[in-house]
C-alpha cells in the first residue's frame, strides 16, 4: 500500500524552473507522475500543476546550480528524496547527494575520468548507479557507505563519512521539533505520507498543522507523544515510533519562555504551582497512575516540568491542564490561570474615548506598526482622511475617527491583522465614556428567535 510519492520530497506552492529549458507536460495524477518519473532514469523531479493536472518532468533538482524555485499557487514541486538528502539510508546505495569530498578532506575524482586512478566504475558502464561528476556514491554496496576515488595520487579511494539519517540529527526532549529525514519506523516499516489517508485514515493532515512540519512521510511528533512516530504503510500496523537517537547532555525546550505566575501562548513553558482545574477539582500527580492511567510521566516527558500535580501543558493543548482526582473527569484545563500580559508598554495616554487624541503613537498594543491612513496597503481602509477630514488622520498615527469607546486605533501593517487598538492608555482620572443606545428604541431583526419544542429523546427513539 505504499504510495509512489513516498520517494519524493514535496514543496507546496513551488515550481522549479531553469531558464531556456522546457519539457513536455503530460496529464496525469500526482501518483502517475511519480511512477513515470521513477521509471525514467534521467528524471529527478517534477512540477505538478494541481489545476491542469499536468506534470512537467525535470532532469534536475533545486539543489543544482542554475535552477530557480518560484512561488506558484497551483504547482507543487516533487523532488526525488535521494537527491535531497545529505544523509544516507542503510548503506547509502541510493544516495544521490552532492558531497564530493572524502572524510579526510580529499577532493573526489570524476567517475568518468581515469586520472589519477584508473577504474572500471564508469558512468557509461553503470548508468543506474548515479555516477555523476565527482559525487560520493556507493556503486558496490560498500559497508562504509558512499565513497569515491580521490584526486590524491597516494590515496586511491576513501569513504566520504556521510552520516546515516537516523544519526545525523538527534532528538531534544520528545522530538516535537524534529525535522529530519527518517522515514522508517523502529521495526523497519516504511512511513505513510502525512498528506495521504491510506492505508490509515487520520487527523494529522499537513494543512491543519502548518507548524508541525508534517512533510512527506518523515517521522514527526505532532501530538506530544514520547518521541517521533508515523503511520505505517502496513495496513495491519497503524502507527509506530521511529528510532532516532537522543541528543547528549541537558535537554531543554527551544524557543519556550518559562513563566511562573502566569502563562504565555499555550502555556508549554508554565512552571507555576497551581494544582487545581478551573472547576477547583484537584489535579492528579503526574508520577501517579491513579485514578487515571496515562503516559505523561516525568520520565517520559523530562522537559515538560511534570512536577507534583501542577497544571502543565506537555502535549501542546490550548492551555495548561492536568489529570484530575475525580474519576469521572479524566482531564481538565486550568483556565483560571492568568495569561501573561503580552501587550507592549503604553507610550502615551488619552482622555475621554480618545477622539481628540492628536499624539504621535503609531503602534498597536501588540507592537505592530500602524498603516498610513492614506494608503491602501496592506489593508484597504474604509476610514480615510477623505471620509473623516476632521479626525486628524495624519501619517500612521493612532486616532479614533469613529468614536470607538475603547480608544484610539489604527489599521496595521501586518496583512493578517486588519486593525487593532493602540499602545495608549487612558490618562489617570479619565474614565472611558461609553455611547449608550436607547434600549427602548431598539428593534431586533431576524435574530434571537427559536422554535421552542420538547427535545427529542434520540436514544429512546
Amino acid at each position, binding site marked *: 500500500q505504499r504510495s509512489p510519492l513516498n520517494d519524493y520530497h514535496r514543496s507546496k506552492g513551488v515550481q522549479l524552473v531553469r531558464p531556456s529549458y522546457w519539457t513536455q507536460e503530460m496529464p496525469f495524477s500526482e501518483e502517475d507522475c511519480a511512477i513515470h518519473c521513477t521509471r525514467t532514469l534521467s528524471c529527478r523531479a517534477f512540477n505538478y500543476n494541481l489545476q491542469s493536472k499536468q506534470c512537467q518532468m525535470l532532469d534536475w533538482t533545486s539543489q543544482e546550480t542554475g535552477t530557480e524555485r518560484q512561488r506558484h499557487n497551483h504547482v507543487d514541486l516533487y523532488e526525488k528524496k535521494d537527491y535531497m538528502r545529505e544523509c544516507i539510508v542503510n548503506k547509502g546505495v541510493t544516495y544521490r547527494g552532492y558531497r564530493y569530498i572524502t572524510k579526510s578532506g580529499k577532493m573526489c575524482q570524476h567517475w568518468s575520468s581515469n586520472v589519477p586512478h584508473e577504474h572500471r566504475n564508469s558512468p557509461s558502464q553503470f548508468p543506474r548507479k548515479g555516477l555523476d561528476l565527482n559525487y560520493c556514491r556507493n556503486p558496490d554496496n560498500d559497508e562504509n557507505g558512499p565513497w569515491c576515488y580521490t584526486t590524491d595520487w597516494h590515496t586511491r579511494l576513501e569513504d566520504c563519512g556521510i552520516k546515516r539519517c537516523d544519526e545525523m540529527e538527534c532528538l531534544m526532549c520528545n522530538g516535537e521539533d524534529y525535522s529530519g529525514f527518517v522515514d522508517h519506523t523502529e521495526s523497519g516499516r516504511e512511513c505513510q505520507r502525512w498528506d495521504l489517508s491510506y492505508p490509515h485514515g487520520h*487527523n494529522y*493532515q499537513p*494543512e*491543519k*498543522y*502548518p*507548524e508541525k512540519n508534517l512533510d512527506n512521510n518523515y517521522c514527526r511528533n505532532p*501530538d506530544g507523544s514520547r518521541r517521533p512516530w508515523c503511520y505505517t504503510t502496513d495496513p495491519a500496523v497503524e502507527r509506530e515510533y521511529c528510532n532516532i537517537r537522543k541528543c547528549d547532555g541537558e535537554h531543554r525546550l527551544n524557543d519556550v519562555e518559562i513563566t511562573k505566575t502566569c502563562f504565555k*501562548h*499555550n*502555556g508549554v513553558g508554565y512552571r507555576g504551582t497551581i494544582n487545581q*482545574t*478551573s*472547576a*477547583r477539582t484537584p489535579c492528579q500527580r503526574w508520577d501517579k497512575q491513579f485514578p487515571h492511567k496515562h503516559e505523561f510521566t516525568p520520565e517520559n516527558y523530562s522537559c515538560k516540568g511534570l512536577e507534583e500535580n501542577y497544571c502543565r501543558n506537555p502535549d501542546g*493543548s*490550548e*492551555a495548561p491542564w492536568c489529570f484530575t482526582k*475525580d474519576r*469521572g*473527569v479524566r482531564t*481538565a*484545563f486550568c*483556565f*483560571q490561570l492568568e*495569561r501573561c500580559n*503580552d*501587550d507592549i508598554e503604553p507610550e502615551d495616554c488619552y482622555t475621554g474615548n480618545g477622539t481628540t487624541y492628536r499624539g504621535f503613537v503609531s503602534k498597536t*498594543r*501588540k507592537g505592530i506598526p500602524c498603516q498610513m491612513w492614506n494608503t491602501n496597503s496592506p489593508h484597504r481602509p*474604509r476610514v480615510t482622511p477623505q471620509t473623516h477630514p476632521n479626525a486628524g488622520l495624519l501619517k500612521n498615527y493612532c486616532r479614533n475617527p*469613529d468614536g*470607538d*469607546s*475603547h*480608544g484610539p486605533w489604527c489599521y496595521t501593517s501586518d496583512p*493578517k*491583522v486588519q*486593525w487593532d*487598538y493602540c499602545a495608549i492608555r487612558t490618562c489617570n482620572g479619565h474614565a472611558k465614556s*461609553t*455611547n*449608550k*443606545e*436607547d*434600549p427602548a428604541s*431598539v*428593534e*431586533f*431583526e*431576524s*435574530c*434571537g*428567535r*427559536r*422554535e*421552542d*419544542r420538547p*427535545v427529542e429523546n*434520540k436514544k429512546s427513539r
Partner: protein
Amino acid sequence: ILRGTPGNSPWTVSLRNREGKHFCGGSLVRRNWIISMKQCFSSCYAEFRGYEAWMGTILKDPRSDDPDKQAIPIRRAVCGPKHSNLIMLELERPATLNSRVALICLPPQGYIVPEGTSCEIAGWGETQGTGRDDVLNILVMPVISNNVCNRYYRGRLAETEICAGTVLRGFGACERDYGGPLACFTHSCWVLEGVIIPRRGCGRPNHPGIFVRVAMYVDWIKKVIEL
C-alpha cells in the same frame, strides 16, 4: 452545565480543536461570526487552521454523517479590547440558518439588563453527574444586579461584568462551557447579554455566575464585523 436540562439553543456552537475535541463554547452572532472567550485560544494571532465550529446538533459527539451538523472551519480571530476576555472568530463560510442553527441578537450598546430578567446558559461542558453528558444542557437563571452580586464578591465585580444565577450550591457553568452564551429573553428576542468565563470552581454556594457584559463591547463587535 451543572443541574441543566437537555435543550435547544440554536446559537450555541461547540468549538473543536484539531483532534475534533470540544473544548469551549461560543455564540453565533452573524452567519460567519462567533463570539467566545479569549482564554480558550493560545493567542489572537495563533494558527487557526484545523479548528472548527460545530452547530446544528445538540449531541456532543454527533456521528460524522449527521445531516444536521454543520462543521465550519475557523478562518481567523480578533481579540477584544483590553481586559474584555472576548474573542471574535470568523468562519470560513457562513452558517446555514434553519430551525437548529440561528443567530442571537446583540444588546444595545451599554444596555443594563434589569434585575430578575430570565436568562439561560448553554453548553456541552462538565455536568459533574448532575445531568446528561452527551447532549447540550441548558440552565435557566435570573439576572442579579451588580449591586446585589457585589455582596457575594466583596465589591470586586466590574462594570463590564454581568451577574446571574443563584447562591445555592451546585448550579451553573463548568469546565468546557466557557465561551458560551448567557442569553436573555427581552423585546421578544433572545439577546446575548453575557459570555461565560472561568471562575474558581463550578456551582459554588454564595457565588452566582459572573459573565462578560456583552453590552459594553457591542460597538467593538459591530466594528469587527463591519470593517
